[in-house]
């Protein structure tokens, strides 16, 4: 019995040593400058619960921002400028909001205005700061079986529903794009629960890039933000059919998670990221992103103003 207890203690010791070694090694990966460490450790020591990720900032983002490669493009610049590690979790706006509501990330970048405003109103977020916008488009096969080309969004959705043969692929993941899609169905006077139960409606449960891929393979219609569509267009057989409609405006905002709600939030890092995203240089980079490759901008910078059209 004694030997058994001794044995269990040895295992526990080894595991905890191994655990602290990993914690140390992941901390040592950082090369923070004195000022950056001071700000982040000051915040950390002000809280009762120690943060394992002292100089890592975690952002939950929508897949439509990530799949265009914009984050991958901006990440090295941010990391170098602020000497922080940026961990990007790309799972869709719905998942991003959920992660932020439990304090599992420090900041979120999504495009679901109603959910964002509610998030801030409920005290989870500090402030909703729009930083970029583009437009949604309805894409589909070039043959356009339902004949929606050139219509506005609501009429196009109506036509797809009445035609009822060509499939429509939905994000199906409560993302910003999915929410926008639901709003268009509602604006077209259709009942969403009936629509989503229809045989031609495909709920993919995937990110924007994967959804476009699926729509391309199935020869179906889908709603996508123009940026992600452009960055994937060369790999797929989808064309833009509908670009008109006020409901197609798509605004991306960044919101820091409220530190008074979750004491471990790396609020300094979150604010650094927001400062970086809204700085004039980055806003200009966002405007120029993709112009060389696609001949047009994938995103338009907000320059501090909320876009209305």
């Amino acid at each position: 019995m004694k030997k058994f207890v001794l044995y269990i203690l040895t295992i526990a010791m080894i595991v905890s040593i191994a655990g602290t070694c990993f914690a140390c090694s992941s901390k040592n990966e950082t090369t923070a400058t004195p000022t950056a460490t001071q700000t982040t450790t000051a915040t950390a020591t002000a809280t009762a619960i120690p943060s394992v990720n002292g100089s890592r900032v975690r952002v939950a983002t929508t897949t439509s921002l990530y799949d265009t490669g914009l984050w991958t493009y901006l990440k090295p610049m941010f990391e170098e400028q602020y000497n922080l590690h940026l961990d990007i979790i790309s799972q869709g706006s719905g998942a991003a909001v959920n992660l932020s509501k439990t304090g599992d990330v420090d900041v979120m970048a999504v495009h679901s205005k109603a959910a964002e405003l509610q998030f801030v109103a409920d005290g989870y977020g500090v402030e909703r700061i729009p930083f970029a916008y583009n437009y949604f488009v309805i894409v589909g096969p070039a043959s356009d079986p339902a004949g929606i080309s050139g219509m506005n969004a609501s009429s196009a959705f109506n036509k797809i529903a009445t035609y009822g043969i060509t499939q429509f692929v939905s994000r199906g993941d409560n993302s910003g794009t999915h929410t926008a899609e639901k709003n268009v169905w509602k604006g077209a006077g259709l009942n969403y629960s009936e629509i989503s139960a229809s045989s031609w409606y495909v709920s993919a449960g995937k990110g924007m890039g994967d959804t476009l891929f699926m729509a391309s393979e199935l020869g179906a219609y889908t709603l996508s933000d123009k940026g992600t569509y452009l960055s994937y267009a060369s790999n797929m057989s989808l064309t833009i059919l509908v670009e008109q409609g006020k409901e197609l405006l798509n605004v991306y905002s960044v919101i820091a998670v409220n530190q008074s709600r979750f004491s471990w939030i790396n609020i300094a890092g979150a604010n650094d990221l927001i400062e970086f995203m809204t700085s004039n240089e980055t806003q200009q980079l966002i405007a120029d992103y993709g112009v060389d490759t696609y001949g047009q901008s994938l995103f338009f910078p907000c320059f501090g103003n909320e876009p209305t059209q």
Partner: protein
Amino acid sequence: MSELWEAFKTAIHLLVTLDPEVVQIAWRSLWIAATSCAVCVVICIPLGNMIHFNRFRGKELLLSVIQTLYSMPTVAVGLIVVMLFRRSGPIGPLGLLFTPDVMVIGQILLVTPVMLGLMISALSGIDKAIIETATSLGASRMQAYRICTREAKFAVMTAIVIGFGRAISEVGLSTMVGGNIEGYTRTLTTAIPLETGKGDFPLALALGIVLVFIAFLLNIALYMLQHRRAWTRLFIWRQS
């Protein structure tokens, strides 16, 4: 067809030139799997000996449970780990979700049943007389266990290799608890679906080739272990 061939050629080029992205992803897969296997070895060898050589109430039930856990779906373990380690969960304050550390912990949970079960069956393959002889010659419990493990060493090594194979090839757990963060928690198995979905087939292929290659090496190791064991057995039989 030519598109496939182009993708394949680019993939080979990425591998031959040791493309940094491929290398860092592959290296991460290897060290996470190796770390979890190392901890599992430390847990499973003594525990396996203790379970096998002792009679206790519920032993049969325990063995059944271990065997059932062999095919525990990785996403189920992933779900449990996420629920435990998210900030709102019981182990939340450690802040381990979306780090490589929690991936190691999850893989330990995944690999332990497999390694433990195979360890026990490895020990059941050796002669009972060995532990009796060792104990009668004055060996302590731990010493006797060490001798028995050494006796079954090829089967034990097989258990370790199989455990490593399970760790390195699982996707569900790594994606869910690691978050597939570029440069931090992205491994071979989490990167391949991402790159495939993006349509970046050359990179996905390169990563896939590395993964298959590792599986191939594991297979060769297993073959050599089995083969050598057969030879050793044959030799001993001949001697007597």
